[in-house]
């Protein structure tokens, strides 16, 4: 349904690519997770896909139709939640949704119901400028849903939210998927990704380093990793994927030579796989 082909982006025009030859495909009704550390280029890709940022090189196709040839009516079909809240500060939460809804030429949802879903009903008549960061973020998320979109772009929808509020948001995301919505979800949060996504792509330094379903990634990069804690100038932690020859060797060495405190076998998390692939932490 959505195809991204050989996408590049260079902000400064000096050959330093924030996005460097990225290609992927998103199927209809799928939640596609875009994971990577800060500065990897996730938001840049989302912004190009929504047409916010000018397409420099490569292709973004929606059912074969290029983003740079879309008419304004394309925006009736999509919903976008931004990583930095961007609201009309002088309007209340309710007004922000109501006036935004008025821009669409498709049926829109009731602002009050949406506010209730994201837990902002009590603050409906407060100005957005008086909202906390998390409240603003929820309002931006609610706004993305107002036109009942077929495609949702969510840039860090749960970051900075407390667990119970984050769960509310995740519930809504799952519900949207059940309604047939295709969702592009950007996040640092591997647990959220694992829980929600049908497919994830790992992004590092503007490049995709792995792309598959969470299950396949785990199969591929070893279900059975071993976490060892040992004493050597303080407590050390290390994860080994025993399917790999060199990991196996190193593991044996440590078990033989070091003072081991605990050994746990564990199912690899996406986070561990990411670290394995890039040598970088996510957050």
């Amino acid at each position, binding site marked *: 349904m959505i195809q991204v082909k050989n996408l590049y982006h260079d902000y400064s*025009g000096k050959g330093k690519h924030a996005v460097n030859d990225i290609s992927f495909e998103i199927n209809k009704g799928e939640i596609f997770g875009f994971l990577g550390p800060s500065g990897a280029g996730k938001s840049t890709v989302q912004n190009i896909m929504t047409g916010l940022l*000018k397409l420099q090189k490569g292709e973004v196709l929606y059912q074969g139709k290029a983003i740079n040839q879309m008419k*304004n009516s394309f*925006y009736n079909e999509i919903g976008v939640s*931004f990583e930095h809240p961007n609201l009309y500060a002088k309007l209340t939460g309710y007004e922000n949704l109501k006036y935004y809804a008025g*821009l*669409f030429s498709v049926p829109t949802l009731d602002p009050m119901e949406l506010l209730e879903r994201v837990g902002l009903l009590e603050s409906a008549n407060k100005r957005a400028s008086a909202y906390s960061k998390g409240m603003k973020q929820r309002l931006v998320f609610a706004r993305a849903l107002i036109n009942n979109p077929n495609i949702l772009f969510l840039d860090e929808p749960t970051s900075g939210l407390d667990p119970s509020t984050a769960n509310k948001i995740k519930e809504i995301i799952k519900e949207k998927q059940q309604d047939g919505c295709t969702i592009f979800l950007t996040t640092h949060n591997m647990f959220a990704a694992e829980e929600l996504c049908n497919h994830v792509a790992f992004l590092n330094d503007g490049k995709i380093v792995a792309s598959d379903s969470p299950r396949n990634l785990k199969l591929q990069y070893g279900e059975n990793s071993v976490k060892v804690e040992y004493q050597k100038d303080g407590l050390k932690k290390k994860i080994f994927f025993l399917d790999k020859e060199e990991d196996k060797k190193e593991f044996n060495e440590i078990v033989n030579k070091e003072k081991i405190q605990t050994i746990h076998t564990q199912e690899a998390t996406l986070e561990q796989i990411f670290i394995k692939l890039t040598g970088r932490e996510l957050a």
Partner: protein
Amino acid sequence: MKAFINLFKKDMVIALRNALIWVLIGTLVLLVGFVRFLMPEDFQQNQSQYIYDKSQEQVLQKVFTQSEGGNFTIVNSQKALEASLEKNPYSIGVVFEGSIDQPQFSILHQKNISEKNQRIINASLEKLIAGLRGIERTQQYQVEFLRQQAKVIPKNLTSVPVLLTFEVLIIGFLFIAVFMFQEKNEGSIRAYQISPGGVFLYIISKVMVFIVIGLLYGLSFVLLTLGTSVNLLTLSLLIVLGVALYTLIGIIVAVFFNNISDWFFVGMGVLTLNILPAISYGLPTFAPKFITIIPSYSIMSALREVLFPTGKSIVPALNMLIIGNILAFGICYLVVKRRLMKEGQ
């Protein structure tokens, strides 16, 4: 249409919640007070003239000591002349040199005098000399003299077209910039970018908001200073065209900046350039050719004609404003589409 009304309402609500609206109301009150109560209403009416006869024959001196010379007062020395002017700042001093056949007048005054007044003084002096020579004046001169006198507009009210033009400039050019920077700052412009709203609606809605504010402001100002005797329809048309044009120009400039401080030099430069015609208005000798192509010149002269009709046509000014609006809209559309609605190069 539904989308337009919705967007217009949103922009209007935001405009009315902006502190600037209070600044506007404040300046309106101030300006009305200034025009109505502070400026001297008409200092030309009891304007007296003092004449100092410095010529060899001292004809004027002799004549006037014989018969009292109307609104002329003869003084005996340059000193006495200056003292009289000092006492009565709105009076005119005249120094006569040469002879009756070749008269030479120097005119002294403290306040600026308009070109019109200058002509009145010239005419009255010529009449005086002619009378002394015993030659009848040509009809023409007298007619003009009378007509000029009949048309004198109280000084305080002549400032109304200038102040009104300022208002059009400020509301259109300055406020739209403030508005757009607010949208860029809070990021709401990005939300608009990924809505089906589009460039056209964005511009039209902003322009409409400022037209409404400009009309409310301009009409109140005129009604409170000049009363209801003016042609309100033509006045409204002028305000609409003026505010629309300056809002469009304001958008064109503001698109290229992110905040007031980046905008300041360019913005103030454009604003200053557009204020030049006001200087020309108060100082008719300062009328370089280029000034007439600045839109505020057309606005100001047309406003003056609407408020104080002299029978001149305002159609050329209206044409210029309409063409200006069409041009500005085209440019505005392009820059908003390229620079405001899309990020990156």
